[in-house]
């Protein structure tokens, strides 16, 4: 027998599919680009990042219906009392395991999608009063566009608050609970000890994601053609 120390790798279980992970990190990058471009007055870049974000959000909503098990809203949307019970258990040291998002995390996902969707939608109707006008700004009155622009700026502060909450919560799992959610969102795998033994994780076929993305891009393309062609004015 050898006396050398044996490093035993804990088996990992695949929980996140590629589309969900790509969506997550793309959103992180796009939020940063959107903020930076608006701050520097690079409005063409801001428009592109905003439209891309909108397309990804629509994709994510579709993926939440037809995607893999852990990406589905039905997997991570729980009634409020269950969210409260989960948080109480967490504070008391009793942590329930979930393959995908836990009830609190699921609530954060939905809230984040809603607020980002509101941000992208208000951006379409906004204007900066100078050189930039959102693609749909001419469909509403000046006053409405100005109001939506103010709302667009306000929602950004809400997004910052949500991002802060999200990062603090993830840090709590990583540093306090020893559950590296960041790594899992990169690799798609979690240690099996962090996944319920009876978890039924299934994965949607890649072509479903491809078709969904194609559908979103087609809708976006047709919408862009209609707007740019002035058919709505």
């Amino acid at each position, binding site marked *: 027998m050898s006396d050398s120390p044996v490093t035993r790798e804990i088996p990992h279980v695949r929980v996140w599919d590629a589309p969900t992970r790509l969506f997550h990190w793309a959103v992180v990058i796009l939020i940063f680009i959107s903020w930076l471009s608006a*701050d520097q007055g690079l409005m063409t870049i801001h428009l592109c990042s905003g439209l891309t974000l909108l397309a990804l959000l629509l994709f994510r909503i579709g993926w939440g219906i037809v995607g893999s098990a852990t990406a589905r809203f039905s997997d991570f949307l729980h009634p409020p009392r269950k969210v409260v019970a989960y948080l109480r258990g967490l504070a008391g040291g009793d942590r329930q395991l979930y393959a995908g998002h836990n009830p609190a995390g699921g609530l954060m996902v939905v809230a984040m999608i809603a607020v980002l969707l509101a941000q992208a939608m208000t951006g379409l109707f906004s204007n*900066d*009063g*100078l*050189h930039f006008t959102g693609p749909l700004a001419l469909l509403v009155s000046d006053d409405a566009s*100005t*109001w939506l*622009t*103010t709302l667009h*700026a306000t929602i950004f502060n809400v997004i910052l608050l949500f991002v*802060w909450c999200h990062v*603090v919560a993830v*840090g*709590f799992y990583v*540093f*306090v609970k020893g559950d590296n959610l960041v790594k899992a969102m990169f690799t798609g795998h979690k240690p099996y000890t962090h996944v319920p033994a009876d978890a039924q994780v299934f994965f949607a076929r890649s072509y479903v994601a491809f078709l969904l993305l194609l559908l979103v891009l087609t809708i976006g393309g047709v919408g862009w053609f209609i707007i740019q062609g002035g058919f709505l004015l």
Partner: protein
Amino acid sequence: MSAPAYFGGVTVVTALGIAAAMFLRPAFGHTVLQWIGLESIPQAAPSSFYTVRVAPLLEAHCTSCHGAERQKAELRLDSFAAVLRGGKHGAVVMPGAARDSSLFTRITLPVTDDRAMPPSGKTPLNKDEITVIRLWLAAGASGTLPVKAIKGAPALVVPVKMPELDLAAVRRQRAPLAHEVSRLQRRFPGVIHYDSRSSADIEVDASLKGAAFGDDDLDALVPLRDRIVSANLSGTAVTDASAPLLASMKALRVLRLMNTKTTDATVQALASSKTLKVLAVAKATPGTLAPLRQRGVRVYEDLDVR
């Protein structure tokens, strides 16, 4: 790591993040400090040079983009405190140094410059307005310095504000006589008009009717007599028989009777009018006109002042 240690660390990191943001964005820093009461909010005195001369210019040229509704570059120029606070790119006002203040340099750039303010398409500040801003900055960008303390400022131009036309109120004023006016306008086309769009007063101009307009026709206007402010009867067939009616017009200010058969009798009848300001007559003796002239009525003889 324990939960208390983690959340303690989060608190420290968050506080450091906010402090860094306050340092990098002084305007945000001032807002936070003023909000929590650690910094007083600067106020401008109502009679200060800023309030009387500078604030109206900012309101006219800047606050549509840098005001309550919209804050381009996170800059507001709709209050003294906000002006001093500055925006995303720092302070816009350097007290005592106009040429170092972007509030001044931006408004003096050529309109072809992308950084020029107000941006192209909006009305730029004129020379006098720029001088006002420059003098205020050079004098220390004070909120208390009175108007007279800053010498050399161009004279204050106070824009005239026209009252908004309340058409509903005009309609209500005209309503009691509207039917009569309408009827008489049909009977005497082109003779009866309202004084203006905003008035229920009436002008009568029968001069183009000539001899076809006589005492009987003028008598038909009796229902309108309290509203008639001007009557041009020059060249008509009106005679002294209409003098009582003309004298009973309580609002009559202008009366023209050139080239008519009216005489001193009509002038004497008008002597008691308290509203008449202008009278043009063909035949009258100086002694008859004297009382009117003494009252300040402008009297014209033997010429048509139309």
